[in-house]
């Protein structure tokens, strides 16, 4: 019961006040429903009272029928009202949470997003919330009805005979105590079960994911053995735990029946001793069958409350992702000068950028060069405020990037290969994202510059709908379309990561042409790997362990015996490599 209440509290706290009120309303209606259904006891008593009192006629039958019929009609109405409140509350909660998450994401630093985090957020927003809605629409009624109905019947017994009512109440208490005990047992076994679960999952996972390696290295013996052991061990443990739990669970169910028999015995004794009349005695015996029928259901919802808790937890987890203040000034930049002043940035307590100061003049081309993990990508991210820096400041056109509102900051930047994402919409609409009022000529020009001649050959040309995630187009085509989009955006600064530009040879040439068109007359900041591009840069920053260790032009840097020269010779080797 404590778990049940805890679960409801956690869930109610998760809901908006309006939905919470709906669920409270549903509980009140459930109580009214229970009261209506308990009307059968007075009806039975009334009938027997008249039968045994000798005043039995058809009018009595009609009255007894009405005593039940009117409440049953009301009960149907209450049930409808209550379940509608829950349905509305449940589905609306899911909708509201989805919207809240979407709203929240607008303020989450861009740097937070990667394939994993996006997949997780998507799954919570769709599947988890769907599951939550489905359960939330019935869980309140399911967990409360049993207990409420039972307590109402027990309460109404006090009108007949307090001694029997006390016995019945004892049954309810015994049931709840057993319920606690079962929970306790469950908790006690939980760590063991979790460990066994984990062993089975990891053995299965290795088997499934590593099947190529298992086959090619003949590792069947080892991995089959490991899997079989985990599987056997898990099965044995689950079975053992279950065999310990079942007797207790059964006792929990049957203790109520036993109390039912006790009620019958007490009723007989009270009848014999002349304390109760026959009508009351009969009503009580019948009541002993009614009383616990709805209580049994109560124990069965532990699984549901666990699911609810997990759903709520996942939702809260996403809402707790830190956000940043993006409501700065609307500001049109005059130049695209960028400056870092003593910038430091850490992520997960790991220092990634360490006291970096640098200047990039507008309309120049600069390159970041350095080993992987040195911080090149993060430097680019900080310019466009994917993260907020912890120390120092990042200036664009002499103004701290934090003082821009996010849209007017983003206006200045184009990222190539950051995330080639095209929407499940027509090519035209995808391009229009960058410039809503783009003319036909402009769009045509952008497509031509980015080597997207394939668009003409598509069945619907520019009105072709791109499949989900762009699946109907090849990777290279999608890359070029995203460049066409970037060309239309015509931002002052282009940030380019060559590492992700690995494409098949047929596409390479076109892609390079498209990039050339995009970066013409722009401030270009690139994470460079190709000698050709690096050589043409106005300035090269060599990054190592979060610091700028060298900077200058290619020729200047080649004169020094530093990281850059080593790096270049390694690249030459890689490009010239032959099997």
């Amino acid at each position, binding site marked *: 019961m404590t778990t049940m209440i805890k679960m409801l509290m956690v869930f109610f706290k998760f809901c908006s006040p309006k939905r919470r009120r709906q669920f409270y309303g549903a509980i009140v209606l459930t109580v009214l429903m229970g009261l209506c259904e308990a009307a059968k006891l007075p009806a039975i008593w009334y009938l027997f009272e008249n039968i045994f009192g000798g005043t039995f006629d058809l009018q009595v039958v009609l009255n007894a029928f009405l005593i039940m019929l009117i409440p049953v009609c009301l009960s149907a109405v209450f049930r409808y009202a209550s*379940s509608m409140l829950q349905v509305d509350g449940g589905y609306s909660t899911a909708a509201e949470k989805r919207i809240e998450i979407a709203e929240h994401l607008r303020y989450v630093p861009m740097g937070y997003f990667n394939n994993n985090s996006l997949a997780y957020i998507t799954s919570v927003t769709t599947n988890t919330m769907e599951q939550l809605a489905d359960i939330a629409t019935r869980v309140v009624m399911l967990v409360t009805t049993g207990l409420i109905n039972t307590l109402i019947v027990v309460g109404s017994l006090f009108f007949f005979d307090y001694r029997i009512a006390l016995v019945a109440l004892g049954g309810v208490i015994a049931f709840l105590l057993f319920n606690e005990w079962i929970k306790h047992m469950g908790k006690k076994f939980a760590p063991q079960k979790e460990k066994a679960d984990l062993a089975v999952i990891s053995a299965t996972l290795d088997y499934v994911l590593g099947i190529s390696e298992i086959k090619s290295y003949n590792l069947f013996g080892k991995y089959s053995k490991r899997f079989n052991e985990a599987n056997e061990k898990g099965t044995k443990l689950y079975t053992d735990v279950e065999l310990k739990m079942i007797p207790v669970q059964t006792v929990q169910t049957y203790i109520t029946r036993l109390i039912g028999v006790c009620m019958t015995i007490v009723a007989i004794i009270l009848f014999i001793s002349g304390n109760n009349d026959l009508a009351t005695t009969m009503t009580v*015996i019948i009541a002993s069958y009614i009383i616990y029928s709805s209580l049994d259901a109560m124990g069965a919802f532990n699984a549901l409350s666990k699911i609810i808790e997990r759903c709520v937890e996942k939702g809260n987890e996403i809402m707790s992702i830190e956000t940043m203040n993006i409501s700065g000034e609307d500001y049109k930049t005059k130049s695209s000068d960028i400056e870092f002043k003593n910038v430091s940035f850490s992520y997960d307590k790991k220092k990634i950028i360490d006291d970096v100061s640098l200047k990039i003049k507008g309309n120049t081309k600069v390159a970041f060069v350095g080993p992987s993990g040195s911080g090149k990508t993060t430097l680019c991210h900080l310019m466009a405020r994917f993260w907020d820096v912890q120390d120092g400041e990042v200036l664009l056109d002499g103004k701290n990037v934090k003082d821009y509102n996010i849209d007017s900051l983003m206006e200045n930047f184009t990222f190539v290969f950051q995330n080639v994402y095209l929407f499940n919409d027509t090519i035209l609409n995808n391009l229009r994202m960058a410039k809503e009022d783009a003319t036909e000529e402009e769009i045509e020009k952008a497509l031509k510059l980015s080597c997207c001649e394939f668009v003409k050959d598509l069945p619907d040309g520019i009105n072709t709908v791109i499949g989900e995630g762009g699946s109907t187009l090849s990777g290279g085509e999608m890359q070029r379309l995203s460049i066409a989009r970037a060309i239309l955006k015509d931002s002052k600064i282009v940030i380019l990561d060559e590492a992700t530009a690995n494409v098949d040879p047929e596409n390479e040439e076109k892609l390079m042409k498209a990039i050339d068109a995009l970066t013409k007359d722009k401030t270009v900041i690139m994470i460079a790997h190709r000698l050709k591009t690096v050589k043409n840069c106005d300035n090269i920053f060599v990054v190592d362990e979060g610091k700028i260790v060298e900077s200058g032009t290619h020729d200047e840097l080649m004169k020094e015996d530093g990281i850059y020269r080593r790096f270049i010779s390694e690249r030459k080797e890689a490009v010239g490599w032959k*099997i």
Partner: protein
Amino acid sequence: MKNRGLMSILFDYAGDKKKYYTFSIITSLISVVSGIVPFYFIADIINKLVAGVTDFNDYTTDIILLLVLFLSKGVFHIASTSLSHIAAYQTIKWVRKRAIDSLAFASLGDVKRHNSGSLKNTLCERIDSTENTLAHVIPEFSGNIIGFLLTLIYLTVICWQMGLIAIIPFVIGMVAYLTMGIGYSKYYNNTIAKTKILNDTAVEYINGIEVIKAFGKSEVSYEKFKKAAIEGSECFVEWQRNCNIAFSIAMSVAPYTLLAILPLGAILYFNNVITLNIFIISIVMSIGLITPLISSMGYLDDIRKAQTIFSEIDEIVSIKRLDRPSVSTVLPADSGVSLKDVSFGYSDKEVLHNINLEIKPGSSVALVGPSGAGKSTIAKLIASLWDPNEGNIYIGGVNIKDLALEDYNKMVSYVSQSNYLFNVSIMENIRMGNLSATDEEVMEVCKKCGVHDFIMNLENGYDTIVGDAGSHISGGERQRISIARAMMKDSKIVILDEATAYTDPENEAIIQKALSSLVKDKTVIVIAHRLSTIINSDDIILVNDGRIEAHGKHEELLNKSELYKNMWLSHIEGRDGDYND
């Protein structure tokens, strides 16, 4: 695959624990009967009460028998539930084992065609989720329904009119319930459509969030999502608003047997058709009559879910086995590879047509061609991921179908971009190439292919556990470890399937070095995305449209093939042309 009946599934997978299910049903029935016989003693008590018997001793036999029967109901319930749980867990164990075994014997290509995430999901979570159904359905479902029937029969035997009356509310409730079906498909389809829109919008909004922000479209996209979220929930509420009336009536009326028993029974009693005692015992018997039936209906949904899961399992279990002998009759004479009249298609569509290919032992061969030409498929057939539909592949003169998997795998290494590392130490991962290697031998190989230094730089060196969150092993480093593992195996034939594609450029040079030492003195079959890396190959095979269009050395092909020449020119154009300066 069609959903099978749950019982047929259970008996199929329960293995030698089938009899547990049988006993579970038997004990469940005994438990049910133990719950029904007490009505006889209750009736007796009622008789005595109505007759005004006031000596408690007259009631003791009834009461003791009541208690004994309740006890027996409980004990048999425990027995039945325990048996069914044992059987359920055994079934799950066997299901998992059979699925895993099936993966072991299937062709790798067929396994890889299943998404590994969903395979894992099916084999772990989804199988586990059937436990409740498997363990409870048999005793409870059968117990509930048989309990209902037996009680109803008993009641009907006592008094047939009361038996009929008892089910009137249930029938009325069910009629109301069935009216719920009116308009069902309309509402159902509406919710499906709206949910799909919602999910699509969510996927786009979230996965496209970077693009949305970069183009300043947050507001527009957010409003679109908001609309989809609200509509996605309103459609369900609207549906419920319509069908919930019938459902509420059904749920209020159906179990309420007293609604009919009390007035109609009273009329029968008034007209002397039945005695007071029968009237009262009918009331008692009817009270719990319907509830178990309704809870059984709830199981139907669980059963359907379990059937769906088992049909997924059936699909895994029935993956075709790769036909290989357990012991090879002849062993390959050398490390030459030849393909004779090989044709292959994944489903209906043939992608390789009549391929003939001869690869000399110890030579290096490159497969090149436009994307989609079939070069990777040829490599995968040689790597035995699939068997050809027609024709045969020979290694050292022996048909690979006549080679035991073990012998075949000793001969061939297949290195692609995505090699799996197990969640154990780096040392153990590399040792998998040769289980009998000592630590020193492992390190020796690592030094040779240039991974020793980076491993030693890790906090725990060779003992670093690969999968640990803190181990920070990058994609490139993973690949180098897997190359070291392949070297450890020291097989005579090495297939490199775009092994350096998509690695980050900083790592490329190092990985290339590692590969060079791997392929020394071996028969090498390579697919590379950079033509310049393979121009020194002994033989370059140009694949186009599922056929071998030409082959020869680099210079030969440049003269011989227009396609190759174009590919080469395009490659030269795109790549760093000035690497020589």
